[in-house]
């Protein structure tokens, strides 16, 4: 039994609560959309039977061969069974940013300046990674 001393801090609990809900939501969505994908209810951008021809390629070649979207381009294709799965993947990948945004006001209220700065910097770093602005050169 946790005593008052050993209890997790308010921001830690808040982070955990958001993480818990978001993780289950994202995971459930990912599994559901995957079954939609393999069941063929929605057409796929890359037909499932053809996929083995392409997954041996480097990602750059894959993108060129299929004119596959990069960055947030997938969002225009969520009507396709394969890209529908990206909603769940994006939720799982974006969840940490949301958790940081939730604890920021708590840290600010506690006047924990160092951690406010760290949390803001982390949000910026993760947002930059998520933005699609970072490009990797072709091969």
């Amino acid at each position: 039994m946790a005593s008052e001393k050993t209890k997790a801090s308010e921001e830690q609990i808040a982070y955990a609560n958001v993480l818990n809900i978001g993780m289950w939501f994202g995971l459930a969505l990912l599994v559901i959309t995957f079954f939609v994908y393999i069941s063929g209810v929605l057409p796929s951008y890359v037909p499932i039977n053809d996929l083995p021809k392409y997954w041996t390629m480097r990602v750059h070649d894959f993108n060129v061969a299929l004119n596959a979207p990069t960055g947030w381009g997938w969002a225009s294709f969520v009507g396709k069974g394969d890209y529908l799965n990206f909603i769940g993947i994006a939720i799982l990948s974006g969840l940490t940013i949301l958790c940081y945004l939730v604890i920021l006001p708590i840290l600010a209220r506690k006047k924990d300046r160092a951690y406010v700065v760290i949390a803001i910097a982390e949000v910026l770093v993760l947002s930059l990674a998520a933005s699609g602005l970072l490009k990797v050169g072709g091969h």
Partner: protein
Amino acid sequence: MTQRLSFLFIFIVIASVLCAGPGFAATESAPAAQGHADPHASAAPAVPASPEAPTSAAPWWIWPLALFIVTFILGILAVLGGVGGGVLFVPIVGGFFPFNIDFVRGAGLLVALAGALAAGPGLLKRNLASIRLALPVALIASSAAIVGAMIGLALKPNVVNTLLGATILFIVAIMAIAKKSDFPHVEQPDKLSQALGIMGIYREESIGKDVEWNVHKTPTGLALFVVIGVMAGMFGLGAGWANVPVLNLLMGAPLKISVATSKFLLSITDTSAAWVYLNQGAVLPMIVVPSLVGIMLGSIIGVKILAKAKPKAIKWMVIGLLLFAGLRSLLKGLGIWK
């Protein structure tokens, strides 16, 4: 009995990965990827599949099924061996499945991320994962992971495989020789950790006491997380194998705090690298979802077996498996074992 069971597991996993590679599908020379799978692609030039990347003749569904079975077993072994799923996933799937290493690394990051996200809430609520310890470290590691992911996606597959193989063999050495300390002695917390208030208190049920902890050598620890972050992003590995020794042995955090904070940390580090892979298109749901579900279900079973298993025997089996996968990756990269 338990040992026999463990040997059976290792046999099954090795048999599965070996069958999954050359056995499941008679591979054939890759025909040029002619035409396009989608009307949207009509304007794009056809790119032939790399000659070093054979195309599978097996029906598509064999692969997600094989992935599910292999990752289910890996999930069990990961829990029993005390390692993250990502570190087993990338070399084994990269070495024995037909997928390009780019997609394997993207999936590896998401597998490690999902495991960390699933474990995070419980660890945070029980105050075993410390947000005060994790946040400064995560900022360094996640920034470095972006750089690592960009480097990794720019490198040629043979270079990635060679470096991955060497890294896995290095991890094997760490696992074999590194000692762990339940309650490291921290004589004097350093100034940076004091300024950031990196300290805590948790209930250690095994001794029935509240344990106060703090850390030292924080600047050195943070510097090492630059390297760890780059490697995590470059190879798509969860970095628990490196996080725990740095947090525990170098910075002096108790073992439970180190393990839990490391797991939580992966949810942040892997997020940044995962976005880079996702934005570059290096994420295929057909690889990600069966792997993710397989490894999570395997982990649940692994936790149940853990109570009866002999951890030491399993640790050595996991080391053996990693050694095998690391050698495979190294030799594949060097063109010796294609």
